[in-house]
């Protein structure tokens, strides 16, 4: 050890230091999350380390917030209190919550942008911030059980939302709209299991399960091939065997009462017919259907004739025609589509029991559909703009950034070539009006875009990072760059802070940071939130 530190040292932490700590903590939490995102079990020591990191994040967040931000945080906590499922919030469930409680999702977005600022990198960090808020929310909690519940819920990742049972009203509405489903989660909350779904509803079910943060949807279907073709990565998990060995009494009854039972069962809704066909050895679905259709047609004719002869011919037609017509429709539709359509009367009669009595498939198999969440793949690329801003260029190159009629055609080329020789930051845009070479990029992160501009003026560089909602049309982006260049060249250094604020406000940025560099050194650094 070459130097012995003094016996007493005083260190003054600045907000910038605390913010740097926050970013490092989030990075470490992110590493733990990545490492354990697919684990069904997280080792206890890892949970404890994550809890320590959560405490640290809570400490720095609390150390940085102002009154307005504290109110937003309070709102988030109140929302969690109202809907306790949010205790097990995971950023992969975000689409679900965004739709149901937009204010909650928005407040959390704002908190992440506020906390991460320039280091804002992905939406997964919302998960870590909510864990910190949960920790802060139990500061005054005297009930140990409640404390324990919250501390238990502080984990590097959660699964999907555990149960999604439709309320009675929605269930009825769902039936009217033709949607019947129930989503259940497995023990680890990774897989959503749905009981029955028609193929046409599958896309919306997949979307719901993805929104809810599940990683996989397991579905029982006879359309395994169609599903695997439609959803990339979907695969048939296991074939379900049809076992006739224990059908017992009912099967025997079917065999004995064959013509009558075939007529009755063939008139029932299609799903029930399929169920009986799949389950009982002595029932043949196709035969049952045709017996039912013929009986209906012949019965209609007989009833019509009887009524016509006994009473009035028009009454005979009125009674017989609907049955004959329905039988013809059923027969023709079924033969062209290979289906077994029941009668209207059977449908109405059995409608309340169709869900519980109906079969999912003729040859059921389990199909796994992986549900990759979009935010998982959104990772921010590291910008080299800062490195470029720090490069000290030879005088000759710097001079080339001063425009004159003499270098009109050459303007900016030398500088851009020199930057590209050092770093690969893309092609600069030469702005002769403001005498600058400008680099810019926009990285979409969730609903936001992280924009960076590097303005290279003679002996001056400005690096601006802004976070805005990702809804600015492309046509406006160039205008925006021109406006910022105008703002940067229009005023003295003393007003730079004010101008930074103006750029941020006028261009609807939630966050803005402006750094000015000169001769390889940073001279000004402004940061602001809107």
């Amino acid at each position, binding site marked *: 050890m070459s130097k012995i530190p003094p016996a007493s040292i005083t260190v003054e*932490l600045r907000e910038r230091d605390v913010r740097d700590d926050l970013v490092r903590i989030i990075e470490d939490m992110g590493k733990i999350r990545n*490492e354990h995102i697919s684990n069904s079990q997280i080792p206890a020591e890892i949970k404890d380390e994550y809890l320590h990191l959560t405490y640290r994040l809570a400490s720095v967040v609390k150390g940085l917030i102002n009154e307005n931000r*504290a109110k937003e945080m309070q709102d988030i906590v109140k929302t969690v209190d109202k809907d306790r499922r949010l205790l097990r919030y995971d950023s992969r469930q975000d689409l679900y919550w965004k739709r149901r409680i937009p204010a909650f999702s928005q407040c959390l977005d704002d908190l992440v942008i506020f906390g991460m600022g320039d280091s804002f990198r992905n939406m997964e960090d919302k998960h870590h911030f909510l864990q910190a808020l949960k920790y802060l929310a139990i500061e005054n909690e005297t009930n140990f059980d409640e404390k324990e519940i919250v501390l238990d819920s502080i984990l590097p990742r959660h699964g999907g939302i555990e149960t999604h049972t439709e309320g009675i009203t929605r269930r009825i509405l769902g039936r009217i709209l033709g949607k019947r489903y129930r989503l259940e989660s497995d023990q680890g909350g990774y897989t959503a299991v749905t009981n029955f779904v028609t193929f046409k509803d599958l896309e919306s079910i997949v979307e719901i399960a993805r929104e809810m943060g599940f990683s996989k949807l397991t579905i029982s279907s006879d359309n395994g091939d169609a599903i695997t073709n439609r959803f990339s990565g979907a695969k048939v998990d296991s074939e379900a065997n049809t076992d006739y060995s224990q059908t017992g009494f009912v099967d025997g009854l079917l065999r004995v009462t064959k013509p009558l039972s075939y007529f009755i069962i063939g008139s029932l809704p299609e799903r029930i017919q399929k169920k009986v066909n799949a389950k009982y050895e002595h029932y043949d679905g196709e035969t049952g259907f045709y017996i039912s259709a013929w009986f209906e047609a012949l019965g209609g004719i007989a009833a019509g004739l009887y009524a016509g002869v006994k009473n009035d011919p028009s009454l005979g037609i009125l009674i017989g025609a609907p049955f004959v017509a329905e039988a013809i429709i059923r027969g023709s539709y079924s033969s062209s589509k290979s289906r077994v359509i029941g009668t209207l009367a059977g449908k109405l009669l059995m409608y309340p029991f169709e869900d519980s009595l109906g079969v999912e498939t003729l040859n059921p198999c389990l199909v796994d559909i992986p549900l990759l969440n979009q935010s998982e793949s959104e990772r921010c690329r590291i910008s080299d703009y800062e490195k470029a801003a720090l490069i000290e260029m030879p005088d000759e190159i710097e001079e080339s950034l001063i425009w004159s009629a003499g270098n009109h055609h050459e303007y900016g080329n030398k500088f851009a070539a020199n930057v590209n020789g050092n770093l690969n930051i893309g092609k600069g845009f030469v702005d002769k009006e403001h005498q600058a070479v400008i680099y810019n990029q926009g990285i979409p992160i969730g609903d936001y875009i992280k924009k960076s501009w590097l303005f290279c003026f003679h002996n001056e560089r400005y690096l601006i990072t802004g976070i805005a909602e990702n809804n600015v049309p492309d046509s406006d982006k160039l205008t925006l760059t021109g406006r910022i260049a105008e703002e940067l060249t229009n005023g003295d250094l003393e007003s730079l802070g004010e101008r930074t604020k103006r750029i941020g406000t006028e261009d609807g940025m939630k966050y803005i940071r402006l750094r000015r560099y000169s001769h390889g050194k940073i001279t000004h650094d402004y940061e602001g939130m809107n």
Partner: protein
Amino acid sequence: MNFQQEQKIVIRRTPSPEISDRIRQGKKFIVVEDSFDLGNIPNGYSLVDVKYKGSSFKTLIPQSLIFYMANPGEGSIDDALDEISDFYGDVEDFEEDIMRENGTSVQETDWAVMARGSYRTYLINKLVKSGRKNNEGEPVPEFKIDELNRLRLYDPEVKKITKAIAALALGKSIEDVGEYSVDGVLRHVTFTEVKTEQLSREEFDRITCWAGSHYEIRPEFKDEGYKIEKRHDRDFKTGTRIITRTRTVEAEIRKFEDEIEQIRKEKGDEIGRHDRALVRQYVNLVHIANVDSGNQLDIMPSEGRVKNE
């Protein structure tokens, strides 16, 4: 739950008479009272006062440790790794006191963050040295062959395992790990750990009993992931079982780390306190950081105060 911005937490600080006991115990992070007298600073320690927004946080910290953390990479790397690990352990002990009160401390957090960062820097220094200079005159880092040999990272078997660890961390499925390749790895998460299976009738009969109007799962099978539909139909015997496999990604990474240690032990190596962390840092440097820095393995200072446990 309730969130309050202003809340005073009473942090337990070591009173002056107890300080010598703590030093005798070898503690490296001793939080002292605000009124601590400068004249009582023990030999080899410094009193560090970290202030934030007017609040003071005073600690006694060994001077050697302050040196290591203020000059990351300098001095004896082995000592630094040990001291920082001990320090981190003490910091976490103190954190637990605060957490028991559900408190927070910006300054204490700053120490913990610094310890983690310094530890990683020393790990890199343990593995890497400055090599020859590039065109701009900057030294290009090179691995220390001796250290890599000590950790047997050139051993073909260990080399394969480190690549497999990286592949797992980068999100390759366990089935694909056998290829031991990290080329062209894209992040995707596969979940092969949880499986839902339909029950056979035999299994259904084994795990259920007829409860008069419907089937119930027998108590001894209640926590084993079985799900059945409760219908008033004695012939309806349909259900699923969710099987959670224990072969998880982390288990695999740990298993791989254990395997490396086993190989080394079989070859007569002594396993050092920081070796596991060194292998993790090596995997980060060689295989992960350049592909997806966000997916690097987390490294925390090693537990245990005795060297070569």
